[in-house]
């Protein structure tokens, strides 16, 4: 089993529902966010196009943040999810420096925090809060190892890319364009 997220940039309208749902579900501290939006406008007026990316931790297959953690607090758990064990975290920030996506931050309580793909919901068979709340159904979550899953079907059927593939981290958030 390998969990992955597929996000359709054509369907996304940038409503921020995923950001709000994450903050509510995970009680992220004020001023911090586990997911965010990136707007990319390309072209020259009047020939402009805009893509909106809902971004978060990419739960990489080859995560440098896990490799560089000196205590084992950053770890890979079931389904390839990358999580932080707060009880083992020293707040040394080696993982923050190692993440090419700047997807981690230091929680005001001192430990490092990041998106978990809502692991507490996934363990109950539910989708992550951001996926659940998306009003345009631009986000899909599932097992990319299962060829019959919706995420596998989308990756096969559409033009797809990942952020910063040159990092060599094998990110598991895919964008449909």
């Amino acid at each position, binding site marked *: 089993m390998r969990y992955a997220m597929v996000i359709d940039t054509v369907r996304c309208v940038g409503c921020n529902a995923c950001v709000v749902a994450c903050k509510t579900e995970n009680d992220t501290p004020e*001023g911090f966010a586990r997911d965010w939006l990136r707007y990319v406008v390309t072209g020259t007026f009047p020939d402009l196009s805009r893509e909106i990316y809902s971004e978060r931790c990419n739960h990489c297959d080859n995560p*440098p943040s896990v490799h560089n953690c*000196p205590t084992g607090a950053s770890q890979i758990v079931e389904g390839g999810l990358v999580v932080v064990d707060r009880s083992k975290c*020293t707040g040394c920030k*080696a993982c923050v420096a190692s993440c*090419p996506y*700047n997807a*981690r931050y230091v929680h005001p309580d001192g430990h490092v925090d990041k998106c978990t793909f809502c692991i507490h919901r996934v363990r109950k068979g539910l989708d992550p809060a951001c996926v659940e709340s998306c009003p345009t159904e631009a986000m899909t979550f599932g097992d990319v190892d299962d060829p019959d899953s919706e995420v596998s079907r989308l990756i096969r059927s559409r033009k797809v890319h990942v*952020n910063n593939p040159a990092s060599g981290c094998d990110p598991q958030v895919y964008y449909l364009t």
Partner: protein
Amino acid sequence: MTETLVLRTNEGIDPQLHIWGWDVAGYLFLGGLVAGLLFFIGLHMRRSGARRALPTSVRWGAVAAPLLLGAGMFLLFLDLDLKLHVWRFYTAFRWTSPMSWGSWILLLVFPLMLVQVLLIAPESIRSLLVRAAPASWAASMAERGWNVVASLSILTGVALGIYTGILLGASVARPLWSSAALGPLFLASGISGAAALLALLERDHAARAWFTRADVWALGAELALIGAFFVGHATSTRCHIEAIQLFLGGAYTAPFWGLVVVVGVAAPLLLEWLELRGRVVVSAAVPVLVLVGGLALRYVIVAAGQAAGVGGDAPLNTFF
């Protein structure tokens, strides 16, 4: 043209990564300085032979090394956001993590440094310590393994010096740090700083000249490694080329070339070289310049490295 707007305002991450500051730079500087001290202590122990004749500065250097490393580790402790979890470093060994290697290396270096204090510290300090029976026994045991202690000191000095660079270099997400030259550069800088410190402490003219000569070699190596650092980046990937622009007209150009290269390397190298040729008499200010340059090197590299990413995560309101 492409305009990128990121709606994220995480403290310490946006608009630019800033998680490590003066405390980490100070630790890397002190770690490098201790690495250089261990190198010179080992070298002089091996050179001293049966007479055990060591320069006074080396004897005091052996006393200073554990204190300086302790101060460096305290700075590292200050940087931790969960200080009460510091013991977690010693309940795991993660072979893929340079920081894990470092935390264990630092712990293992201390017994070696304490043995050196018992062996070669100035008599006023040594006599106080070996009064206790266990210390006296340890000192007599270590005396038999003089050459082993000396060799271990050189080896751990080199390992510790290179490690301070690898700690940063292991981060592929920060292209400025991701350089094979960074470990040797920090080692050369640490050896240079230690030579300067020992020259500062030394009163014997011949011994002082020896350390000045050693510093000239170390500073020359440092200059060559700075060149290799630049060539390595300029001939690497686009993100490496963009990262090195921080020193070539970018935000860190003035501190790097002014403080690190001119004040910390080129000026002392020239003055010490002239002193060895008998042209000028160098004051104590020159070793101080070397030490200031060593600290500036760590600070500038730590700060600039955080300003350069690998893309895929453009800073706020970026046009390119």
